[in-house]
């Protein structure tokens, strides 16, 4: 499979000495939806800006669409679309004018640019506001317009820097559907995000980045599996005496395939390989020992645990609150 992005030992040191990207290597194959997951300040934006030709690297190699970014930026620019975290829209122009401008800058003639703008406005459900100044657009509309802008020239590779930061859950969901549709139609996507849920849902493969370094890389499922299996939490009644609690802990610890239990108040959390299998057996074991169970729950590991395990910290998510009330019903149509 063709590698659309190949990064080898890439490092970026800013003039003030900050190592924003520190010896990073990874690759993205054609057709993938690859994510950089990490907190604010992890180096995600620096990484993406190097790849889209906006920032020079300090050392290492970064190839996009088969060419070294610093050597042939023009070829890279022709092959990629880029939607920045801070949306690049001209507020004084209408939605339609913004799209036509981008299309023209990508070498389309007037008629072709207009046609392409109309097409994208329809795809992103912006036709009704096409003639209005972008200054009045909601957060969700701006994101959609920006995504549309990055697609004017039908790039095979799309770079998205935190595409849903600041969006409300509904608009975020609609944006996800757009991206999934785009990817299904063959666009390779590189995105950065600080949302675990987003990485989990969208990315076929992801790298967790912290302080400029990739700490771990793999598919969301593999990464979670690596952290361990499921967790079963057994809650005993509140009036359970310490002796019964101790007996319960002993009973579940001897359970085949179980890890070390964590006891909190009257609850025992037990890592197991497969919660589905373990659940009934655990209940039977406790029942046989005459220990009553008040509540039973199970959970699968999340990327949060993956992050915690590899960085020793929980993800720090900061958010800007942009309201975007309009729902989006249409999904992305196929590229021609």
């Amino acid at each position, binding site marked *: 499979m063709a590698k659309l992005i190949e990064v080898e030992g890439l490092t970026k040191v800013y003039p003030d000495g900050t190592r924003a990207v520190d010896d990073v290597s990874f690759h993205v194959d054609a057709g993938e939806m690859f994510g950089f997951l990490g907190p604010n300040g992890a180096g995600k934006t620096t990484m993406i800006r190097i790849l889209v030709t906006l920032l020079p690297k300090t050392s290492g190699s970064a190839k996009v669409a088969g060419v070294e970014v610093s050597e042939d930026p023009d070829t890279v620019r022709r092959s990629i679309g*880029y939607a920045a975290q801070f949306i*690049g829209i001209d507020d004084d122009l209408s939605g339609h*004018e913004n799209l036509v401008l981008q299309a023209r800058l990508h070498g389309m003639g007037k008629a072709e640019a207009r046609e392409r703008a109309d097409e994208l406005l329809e795809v992103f459900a912006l036709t009704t506001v096409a003639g209005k100044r972008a200054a009045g657009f909601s957060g969700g509309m701006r994101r959609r317009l920006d995504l549309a*802008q990055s697609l004017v020239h039908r790039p095979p590779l799309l770079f998205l820097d935190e595409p849903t930061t600041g969006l409300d859950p509904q608009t975020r969901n609609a944006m996800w559907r757009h991206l999934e549709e785009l990817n299904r139609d063959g666009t390779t996507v590189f995105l950065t995000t600080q949302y675990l849920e987003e990485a989990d849902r969208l990315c076929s493969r992801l790298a967790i980045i912290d302080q400029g370094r990739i700490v771990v890389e793999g598919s969301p499922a593999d990464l979670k599996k690596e952290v361990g299996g499921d967790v079963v939490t057994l809650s005993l009644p509140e009036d359970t005496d310490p002796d019964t609690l101790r007996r319960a802990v002993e009973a579940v610890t001897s359970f085949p395939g179980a890890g070390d239990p964590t006891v909190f108040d009257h609850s025992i959390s037990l890592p197991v390989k497969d919660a589905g299998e373990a659940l009934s057996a655990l209940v039977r074991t406790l029942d046989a020992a005459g220990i009553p169970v008040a509540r039973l729950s199970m959970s699968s590991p999340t990327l949060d645990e993956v992050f915690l395990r590899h960085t020793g910290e929980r993800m720090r998510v900061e958010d800007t609150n942009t309201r975007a009330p309009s729902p989006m019903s249409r999904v992305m149509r196929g590229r021609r």
Partner: protein
Amino acid sequence: MLRSLGESTILFQRNLRKLLRVPMMVFFSLFQPLLWLILFTQIFQRLGEFPQFQRQGYDSYLMFFAPSVLTMTVLTSAFQSGMGMVTDLETGMLDKFLISPIRRSSVLLGKVMADAFRMLLQGGMVLVIALLMGARIETGIPGAIVMLVTAALFGIVWAGLSNIVALRTRHAELTMMIGILLTFPLLFLSTAMMPEGLLPGWLETVGRFNPVSYVIDTARAFMNFGYDWGQLGITLGVIAVVGVFTLTGATRAFRRATS
């Protein structure tokens, strides 16, 4: 070359459209020279009757002052030029231009073209207003065109300075403030308000090193006395020298800001 012109034209149209999208902006940029023309010609009206003034050959203070307003107006647009650059930096529009496969120089050229267009338009309005107020241009329409083009050329060169500040500071208010600070002393230390013979000695000396004086004196010559090619040639040379500094500076600042 052709490709670059095409790209610049796209951005020129965009910049122009932005300007026209804010009608208040258009209104006030035309209102301002009108205000200056009326205010200053009223304040200094009696000056036109002084024998020392008349001896220099000016029919009225209006005839003397209209070329100054032309230059002032163009300079006002010039020192605001960087503001648009800051906006494009802040909104991410500049990034959008830079990741599209156009030449870097086209971004700058598109801006220069829009600035020039605006300056020519405003300058033209100044001359029309002056004519309506009773001034006349000795050299007629060809002379008026020379006056406008010279003023706009200087405006572009001066706008380079504003863009250097904009690209270095990335701060709109600061760009405006420094722009005003760089521009107004130059205006008042020139022959804008008083003819050379009536300025204090030290100011006359300063005026000789002040490019603004050259631009104003040339426009003044074409308006009051007739074609003065020698004066025009010197002024174009002065503009070129200033331009070498401001425009290469702006290009360098642009390259630094965008890499």
